[in-house]
């Protein structure tokens, strides 16, 4: 079995290396890859320090704000920037469209802003080319061009009849051709691209940071290879199933077009129709209403304030706010924040749930498209997808809440010490600002990513295993 497969693979590799299709398509892909990698490298090396500088400057401004009331400082706030992951060099994913900075201030859970897509020229509406795009969308076309006539050409020329009269089975022929196509595509196209990508990433951040990203990059490479195996197997199955090479090419390009163009549009439209998102205006109006009237709409801010006042006076056993040993404003502000958290958690929770339902619809339809499943996995592993964005959004919000609590607690504890400068008259010093550490965000690990990509991974593996199964089945039935 192995000897026959080896014989066929050896001859097929020699044929493929002589084949101008491989040379020209590899050359075309190299050019696109070079552009994509340069673009990814430029994005990473320019954006990462820019974000780091901006965040450091924003934090320095926070530290240097001088003597100020803590609540004024809470309004002053500072920016948290979503760190650019190293694998954005190979797959920028949704980063341009989701924004990368969030303003952390009192009373508001701000949306992530600073979307690159808002500032770019019209020409960018066609999307950016990334290494991921080259390997997940364009490489399958090259594989189709290399495999569509791998078997049908032998049938048309009559060599399949001679081949099948030797002691070679159809399965051996298909596996041998598949192994050769994999070796040629991997050796000539994929491996050089992966090595150059790894080299560029290492140069961009240095060895230590690169090593930290290796697990995600390793799994990313693994799924690229799974995708290569899938398209080679699909090409051979179709080539072995049709009488004419032209028909094989049409079928394969049809599958690719369906997966790369029709399914994404269908899934996007279907997801939005089944799970519509509220408009930004309606969403903000709802938050304003609930902040004023409580989550249930029947507990106005005034009523809550009065109830709080009564509760605090009772707690401290005094008759008026001026007798309190603590700042009531500090308590009220924190109470207000916590009341707002319920509103934010409910509304943003609902919104994120809608996003996740839309995501689920799209993931379900990715079952029809191995191209999209591979793309989703790639973006997730690169840390440039929606899940990672929501993870960052939640993380930044939790940090904002720490800032608010620190400011409000300080005002509560110290805002009544000087009777002449109570509450908002109280001024805190630099010492308080230093209690807030710089914002840091740790990327979730590979386990988090894989856990969120179960359906896409299952889809890609189902396509691959199913197609390999078809390959064996077609091999057993292979006739001249």
């Amino acid at each position, binding site marked *: 079995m192995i*000897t*026959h497969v080896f*014989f*066929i693979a050896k*001859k097929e590799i020699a*044929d493929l290396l*002589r084949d101008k299709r491989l040379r020209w398509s590899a050359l075309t892909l190299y050019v696109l890859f070079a552009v994509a990698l340069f673009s990814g490298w430029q994005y990473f090396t320019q954006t990462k320090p820019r974000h780091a500088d901006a965040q450091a400057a924003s934090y320095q401004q926070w530290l240097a704000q001088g003597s100020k009331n803590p609540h004024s400082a809470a309004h002053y706030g500072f920016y948290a920037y979503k760190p650019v992951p190293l694998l954005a060099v190979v797959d920028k994913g949704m980063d341009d469209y989701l924004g990368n900075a969030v303003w952390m201030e009192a009373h508001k859970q701000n949306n992530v802003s600073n979307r690159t897509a808002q500032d770019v020229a019209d020409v960018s509406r066609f999307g950016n080319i990334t290494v991921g795009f080259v390997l997940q969308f364009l490489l399958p076309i090259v594989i189709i061009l290399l495999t569509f006539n791998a078997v049908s050409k032998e049938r048309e*020329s*009559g*060599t399949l*009849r*001679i*081949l*099948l*009269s*030797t*002691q*070679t*089975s159809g399965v051996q022929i298909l596996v041998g051709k598949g192994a050769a196509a994999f070796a040629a595509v991997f050796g000539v196209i994929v491996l050089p691209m992966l090595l150059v990508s790894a080299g560029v990433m290492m140069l961009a951040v240095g060895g230590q940071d690169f090593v930290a990203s290796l697990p995600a990059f390793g799994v990313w490479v693994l799924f690229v290879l799974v995708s290569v195996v899938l398209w080679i197997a699909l090409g051979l199955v179709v080539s072995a199933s049709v009488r004419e090479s032209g028909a094989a090419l049409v079928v394969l390009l049809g599958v690719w077009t369906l997966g790369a163009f029709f399914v994404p549009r269908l899934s996007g439209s279907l997801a939005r129709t089944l799970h519509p998102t509220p408009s930004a205006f309606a969403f903000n109006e709802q938050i304003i209403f609930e902040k004023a009237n409580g989550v249930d709409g029947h507990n106005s801010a005034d009523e809550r304030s009065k109830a709080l006042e009564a509760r605090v006076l009772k707690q401290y056993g005094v008759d008026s706010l001026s007798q309190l040993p603590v700042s009531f404003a500090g308590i009220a502000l924190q109470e207000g924040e916590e009341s707002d958290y319920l509103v934010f958690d409910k509304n943003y929770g609902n919104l994120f749930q809608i996003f996740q339902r839309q995501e689920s619809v799209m993931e379900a339809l990715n079952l029809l498209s191995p191209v999209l499943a591979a793309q989703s996995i790639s973006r997730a592993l690169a840390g440039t997808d929606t899940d990672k964005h929501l993870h960052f959004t939640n993380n930044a919000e939790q940090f904002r809440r720490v800032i608010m609590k620190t400011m409000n607690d300080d005002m509560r504890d110290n805002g009544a010490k000087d009777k002449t400068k109570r509450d908002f008259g109280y001024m805190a010093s630099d010492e308080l600002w230093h209690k807030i550490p710089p914002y840091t965000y740790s990327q979730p690990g590979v386990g988090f990513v894989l856990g969120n990509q179960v359906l896409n991974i299952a889809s890609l593996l189902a396509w691959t295993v199913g197609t390999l199964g078809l390959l064996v089945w077609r091999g057993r039935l292979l*006739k*001249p």
Partner: protein
Amino acid sequence: MLEAINLSKTYNTAIALHSLNLYIPAGEIFCLLGANGAGKTTTINLFMGFTEPTIGEVLVGGINVAQKPHEIKKLIAYIPENVMLYPTLTGLENLAYLSGLSGTAYSDAELVVFLQRAGLQKEAMKRRVGEYSKGMRQKVGIAIALAKHAKALFLDEPTSGLDPLASNEFSRLIRGLADTEGVAVLMATHDLFRAKEVGDRIGIMNAGHLASVVKAGDVSPSRLEELYMETILQKHAQREAA
């Protein structure tokens, strides 16, 4: 060596082969004559396991082809009308590749001997097959059969399109294989003269039926032609009457 027992093949409603009973012993060359669509190629395809019988059995060396199609590949070789080889490989490389796939890896020197026995000029062996004439490709086909040590050889219109000299040389080689190696040969052809010259027995097929079988030595070329015409015309008349 080769045996068909009550062998029939139907494609949808069209009968390609009807109740063929045939035995070809080792060392015999059996020629199948018949017009296009008579069932000659279907018979060869059934013996080679390229298609399954609708009814009946096919045995090669006592092995049922339908049950063990891979097993019989050790025993057979096939030379079609146009031996299609890989045009970018040389004759030597084609032989190395196809004999390797047949289970035996030979040295270049051994392969050269097979090609020489098949009558290919030495200087042609290292030229790409894309530059070969049809006759030269036939010789590589014979070399493949020699390298496989095939016990049965199937020839489908092998001399069609060859000039008389090349046809004669080809016939001599096939005769040699049957006589010296004991190879059983089933040859489908339109060429009555070649069948008479090279065959031990000749079968005339018409519309999927093996209508008559004669010993090549017992029949003159003119009688063979008469018999061929009678068979075809008789069947034609029967069909007209029906």
